[in-house]
């Protein structure tokens, strides 16, 4: 099915195993455009594996998933055009500068390399644009990975522990990016260990236990107006 779907994510009974161990045991989930969904659960419950299946990095052993109507297995390249995946690790090249890392990403995406300095400025890294990433702290690498993610103009954010290693200003920038994607009609799926940094952002929170969705509830501030969330401009001003 190639037609654009009204759902950002439509996962049906996704199962995935590593060797003999089943990591996901039939996870079904729908995410609508404009929704921000949290995915909680203990270590090893399958949260990251689920995100990796949706991002096309892993193929499911059973079940099917679609991102904006594109099947993650059969139309993986179409899925990749919509998805921005932020993993545990920043996935940057240590011997390239911050600007070169972004230029590499822009060239790979076929985007113009112009305006990359502005992208770095948005995440508070303009002053280290020409420094090699090897010397960056974990938080700075996270910010740079976020700037790279935004070059893709994703309609679906898949964020694995997005607040890890970020300071307060970094958390505001992350929330501003999520808000920006949501306001543009996109959606986000966040793997979280702590819900507090995402307060005001989440519409729903799902809990995974042993590879299955065990509980679903409203986000801690589901009714908070979107306008209360930080904008990128205000977050950048706070850093």
């Amino acid at each position, binding site marked *: 099915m190639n037609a654009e779907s009204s759902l950002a994510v439509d996962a049906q009974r996704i199962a995935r195993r590593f060797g003999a161990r089943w990591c996901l045991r039939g996870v079904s989930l729908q995410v609508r455009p404009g929704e921000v969904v949290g995915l909680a659960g203990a270590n090893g419950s399958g949260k990251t594996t689920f995100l990796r299946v949706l991002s*096309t*990095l892993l193929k499911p052993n059973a079940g099917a998933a679609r991102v904006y109507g594109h099947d993650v297995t059969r139309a993986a390249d179409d899925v990749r055009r919509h998805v921005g995946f932020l993993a545990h690790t920043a*996935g*940057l090249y240590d011997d390239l500068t911050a600007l*070169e890392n972004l230029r590499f990403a822009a060239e790979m995406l076929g985007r113009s390399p112009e305006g990359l300095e502005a992208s770095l400025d948005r995440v508070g890294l303009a002053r280290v644009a020409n420094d090699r990433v090897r010397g960056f702290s974990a938080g700075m690498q996270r910010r740079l990975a976020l700037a790279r993610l935004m070059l893709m103009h994703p309609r679906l954010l898949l964020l694995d522990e997005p607040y890890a290693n970020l300071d307060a200003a970094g958390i505001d920038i992350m929330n501003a990016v999520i808000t920006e994607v949501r306001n543009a009609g996109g959606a986000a799926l966040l793997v979280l260990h702590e819900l507090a940094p995402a307060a005001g952002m989440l519409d729903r929170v799902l809990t995974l236990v042993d590879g299955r969705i065990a509980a679903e509830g409203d986000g801690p501030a589901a009714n908070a107006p979107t306008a209360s969330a930080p904008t990128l401009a205000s977050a950048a001003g706070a850093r």
Partner: protein
Amino acid sequence: MAWREDWRRVRVIAWKDITTERRSKAGFNSVAALAVTILVLFGFALGPEAQALRDAAAGAVWLAALFAGVLAFNRSFQVELESGAIEPLLLYPGSRWTILAGKLLANALFVGLMLAIVVIVGVTLFQVTIPKAWPSLLGLFALGAVGLVVLGTFYAAMSSRTRAREVLLPLLLFPMLVPVLLAAISGSKALLTGDLMHEAGAWIRLLVAYDIVFVSATLLAFEHVIEA
């Protein structure tokens, strides 16, 4: 146009690999040092007799290039794995064969430089006279290097996600490289001795066929190899 997009991706991946390698320096220096050390050890093993050294020169040069090349091939995917950069690389939309093609381009430059050093040291150490047919010898070296790089880079990708990749790569690679080594060593030896039996052409044709088959096959198979 799709091919222009693909070519841009190939170029940018090659640029990234060459830049990171140039800046880290440790990679090329250690590979070149290993290749020269192997050549010197061959020299010691063969003894001081000039004719024995000359006869063994082609084999020693190609084996030194092979053993040192394995280090280089392993490194080309290690850079991607070190900080998890392989995942963003796989998530860029577009043809995945361009990842291999970009790495082939960078590794070809890398191995080409290494081979140049090995040949210069080999010619000096093994008292080899440069033949009149040196352009053919240069072409044969280029074809042999392509064969080495194509399979080396492909198998490095295949073994990159395994824990025993340093051991696995030579185990997978060496048997597959027997035809290219045989052709490269025999062809080089023939050209160095004046090609009296007119056999160099056959070895060069074998290398051309080998390169065409394996460049095509590895580019087609790469997507399946790199997927988890």
